[in-house]
């Protein structure tokens, strides 16, 4: 099988382990564990890089420097923050429903990590190539709303509960335009499989074929992952910190980690659906993939530090009255376009 750099490296590692252990089954088991660990390593490392990136980019956009004293160029700032969060007191509110409240940060991490199973990182480098790949992504992504509701509800704090209600309203209304925008891409590529969607973009990226779907998708994915201008869930000037208000120390750090894992998966999804995945000239696929993903993350951060927070009614109106009709129109236009293309 033809494969990219990542696949070749994985094969080499597998042969090495097989040579050492001498048992095909054991070495396959070891490879599965290595791959699962790799996902968690990628998520944690990406969170640390993204937090640093966010603070530096925020600094540059606001004509400041950002963290630059801890370690070379401030690179150890996030490490210091994480170690500090580990050493903080773990406060459990007396009235909180302890079991639900305690498992929520861990539960939130499950959909955030599960989603990485179907992303094609390189030619052939995909953990599970489901034939309903993009459908699986949408389904798993919408699970995180339950954890927000659970955390806000179990905290027994009015601000937490209001934040949780907002999270539900916001995520439900963002998923529908997002699903319709993705549907147009699926119509053009003719498959729900992630690798097929990437393969269909080998000549022409879908951002050129479906520019309207790209804009709708970008706006609604920003709503989905709660980033400014749509970070109403934790709008600190209104509801303190939303569902996270009562969480301290490491529990809150897990929420934080899941938030940045979601940002990374949103960027990967954008790259896979619209920017040609790992396709690109000269450089190996995985490098192109990383370059595109970090450019999209930069775009999201640029948007975050440029626009102020919207009100909840403005966000709902945008989602239901503007994005949804546009997405439906886009589907009709795509259908007509495909019909004309086939007829010619």
């Amino acid at each position, binding site marked *: 099988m033809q494969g990219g750099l990542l696949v070749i490296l994985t094969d080499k590692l597998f042969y090495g382990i097989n040579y050492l252990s001498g048992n095909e089954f054991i070495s396959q088991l070891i490879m599965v564990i290595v791959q699962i660990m790799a996902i968690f390593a990628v998520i944690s490392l990406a969170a640390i890089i993204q937090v640093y990136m966010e603070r530096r980019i925020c600094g540059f956009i606001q004509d400041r420097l950002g*963290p630059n004293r801890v370690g070379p160029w401030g690179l150890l*700032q996030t490490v210091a923050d994480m170690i500090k969060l580990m050493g903080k007191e773990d406060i459990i509110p007396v009235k909180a429903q302890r079991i639900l409240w305690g498992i929520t940060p861990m539960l939130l991490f499950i959909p955030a990590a599960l989603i990485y199973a179907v992303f094609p990182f390189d030619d052939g480098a995909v953990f599970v190539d489901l034939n309903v790949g993009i459908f699986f992504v949408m389904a798993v992504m919408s699970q995180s709303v339950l954890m927000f509701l659970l955390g806000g509800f179990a905290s027994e704090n009015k601000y937490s509960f209001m934040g949780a209600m907002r999270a539900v309203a916001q995520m439900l209304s963002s998923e529908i335009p997002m699903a319709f925008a993705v549907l147009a891409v699926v119509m053009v590529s003719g498959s729900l499989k992630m690798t097929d969607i990437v393969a269909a973009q080998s000549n022409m990226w879908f951002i050129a074929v479906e520019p309207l779907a790209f804009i709708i998708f970008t706006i609604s994915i920003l709503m989905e992952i709660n980033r400014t201008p749509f970070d109403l869930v934790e709008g600190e000037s209104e509801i303190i910190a939303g569902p996270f208000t*009562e969480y301290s120390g490491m529990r809150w750090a897990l929420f934080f980690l899941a938030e940045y894992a979601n940002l990374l998966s949103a960027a990967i999804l954008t790259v896979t659906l619209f920017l040609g995945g790992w396709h690109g000239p000269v450089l190996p696929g995985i490098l192109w993939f990383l370059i595109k993903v970090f450019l999209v993350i930069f775009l999201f951060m640029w948007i975050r530090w440029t626009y102020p927070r919207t009100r909840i009614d403005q966000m709902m109106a945008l989602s239901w009255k503007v994005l949804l009709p546009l997405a439906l129109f886009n589907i009709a236009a795509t259908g007509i376009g495909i019909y004309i293309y086939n007829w010619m």
Partner: protein
Amino acid sequence: MEIKERVPEILRDNVLLTTVDGLFKWARSNSLWPLTSGLSCCAIEMMCAAAARFDLSRFGYEVFRPSPRQADLFIVAGTLTWKMAPPLKRLYEQMPNPKYVIAMGSCANEGGPFADAYSVVPGVDKIIPVDVYIPGCPPRPEALIEGMLKLKEKIRHPELIQKVE
């Protein structure tokens, strides 16, 4: 025997040794997240310290957390009245340990020009323990940053702080 000497000679340049205590001191002193709270005009100077000209974020202290559960540092910025004292104490008690307090400005230090007023608390240390006092009315943003760096020093070297009787 010093623990450093147990490392083989050939590895001395490649091995970093520290204690858990030292690591946490380093992390805590480099990541003081203040609570978003301001009582009066000193809060304006506090905001200014985080903005472009003075840039508190260079030291990693710009993460103003809205919830006391995630904050490490309480900057009492302004005049504290007796009516505001119970909420202030409650906010302090809601913060998880280890927590630090900076009294910013004359009013927070000892009541300032309102020291004799019936409604003003003469010094925030009547209500909660204070780590660093910053004089000034209001202190300039540089003074606030200097105060936070003093707090950093205090966290790193707690043995240097003498107990005042």
